[in-house]
């Protein structure tokens, strides 16, 4: 199965929730949506494997959920507003999830935001087609903010 190439696929570190991902991620997202109800959160926490049996997920999606691999979930069709409900069920703040997705610690991530966030420079393009100004890091790698 090939995915059509889109202009936005060149944006580094980004999984755009498009129609194709939405199609693949429907059940993953509806699982997350089910966690809006307290009784479902309780059932999920009691037995995650059993609860997930109620949703026709792919083995990859199931594994990503059980291991809380948030980037993998996005890649497999999850949407952040939905997967955030899983993070909330675990009792985590959003910045905890952001730290996981950016391979950072929550403290460092929060510091980066206070310092003005992640810089756009060096984070525009995988191919280097959309560089402007002087990139501060190598293409494709996520560069943090320069604080000062």
């Amino acid at each position, binding site marked *: 199965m090939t995915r059509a190439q889109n*202009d*936005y696929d060149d*944006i*580094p*570190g*980004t*999984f*755009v*929730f*498009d*129609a194709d991902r*939405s199609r693949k*991620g*429907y059940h993953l*997202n*509806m699982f*997350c*949506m089910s*966690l*809006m109800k307290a009784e479902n959160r309780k059932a999920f926490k009691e037995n995650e494997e059993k609860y997930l049996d109620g949703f026709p997920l792919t083995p990859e999606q199931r594994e990503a959920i059980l291991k809380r691999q948030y*980037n993998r979930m*996005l890649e497999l069709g999850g*949407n*952040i*507003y*939905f997967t955030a*409900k899983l993070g*909330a*069920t675990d009792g985590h703040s*959003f*910045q905890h999830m*952001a730290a996981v*997705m*950016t*391979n950072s610690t929550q403290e460092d*991530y929060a510091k*980066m*935001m*206070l310092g*003005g*966030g*992640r*810089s*756009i420079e060096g*984070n*525009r*393009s995988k191919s280097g087609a*959309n560089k402007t100004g002087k990139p501060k890091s190598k293409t494709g790698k*996520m560069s943090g*903010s320069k604080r000062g």
Partner: protein
Amino acid sequence: MARIIAGVTSSHVPAIGAAIDNGRTQEPYWQRVFSGFERSKEWMAKTKPDVAIVIYNDHASAFSVDIVPTFALGCAAEFPPADEGWGPRPVPVVKGHPELAAHIAQSVILDEFDLTVVNKMEVDHGLTVPMNLLCGSPKEWPCKVIPLAVNVVLFPPPTGHRCFMLGKAIRKAVESYPEDLKVVVFGTGGMSHQISGPRAGLINSKFDKAFLDNLSNNPQKIVRMPHVEYMREAGAEGIEMVMWLVMRGALDAKVDEVYRFYTVPASNTAVGHIILENKKRGAGKKKPSAAKKTKHRSARKGKR
């Protein structure tokens, strides 16, 4: 005749709502954000609109991925706050204006904007946070609200141009409504932010400030901006800013910018806020006295 007198844009960061609900607005971090809206609350109290048309997006609260309407117009008499996983926000139930909403729906659909009519809908922080920022935390919201939910979650959202043209159609609809009503339009969401994937935390103040400038003075420069540019420059979720163009389309070509505020960050997001007024009708060449020189406020000045 009903008329649109002004437009407001504001970010709708959920953490702002949480700060209000948990009594943390006086903490220095949040003080920096809320202080930027003090004058806006005064403006709102003085302007006293009868109706606010609030352009916002739902965040997997009222709409899951079962049904994803591109434009959904709230035509109900009221819209309760949604339970976003921690119980509904302790904010007043939003009262609609079903008569004007029905009139807008009929008018814009015949103008070829095929929006979805919604007669039952809960509203999440996307709508209630901007209401707090402009109105504070009253027992009842001071005006009726017509929610217009725009899909910006599932790609592709409507184009900026489509949003701008819908704004024009909404204005035409409002101005053909016989009752004397003062209407303001809120464009919400943005500014630069990305909350998903390894690039999360992205902020682009340079892009945001140029966007605010163009929104005020030169909207034609941004109405054709492609989606990829929003996502690349302002973060994957920065694409919410297309919603601001609905607001801008509903105003005059030339407007008075009466207030602006910008600060980084609120949680993961750059907060941008602007108030634009239509020139007063029949005011001739005289400048409306209410429209003072733009007051630019910017916390963390010179921070990139």
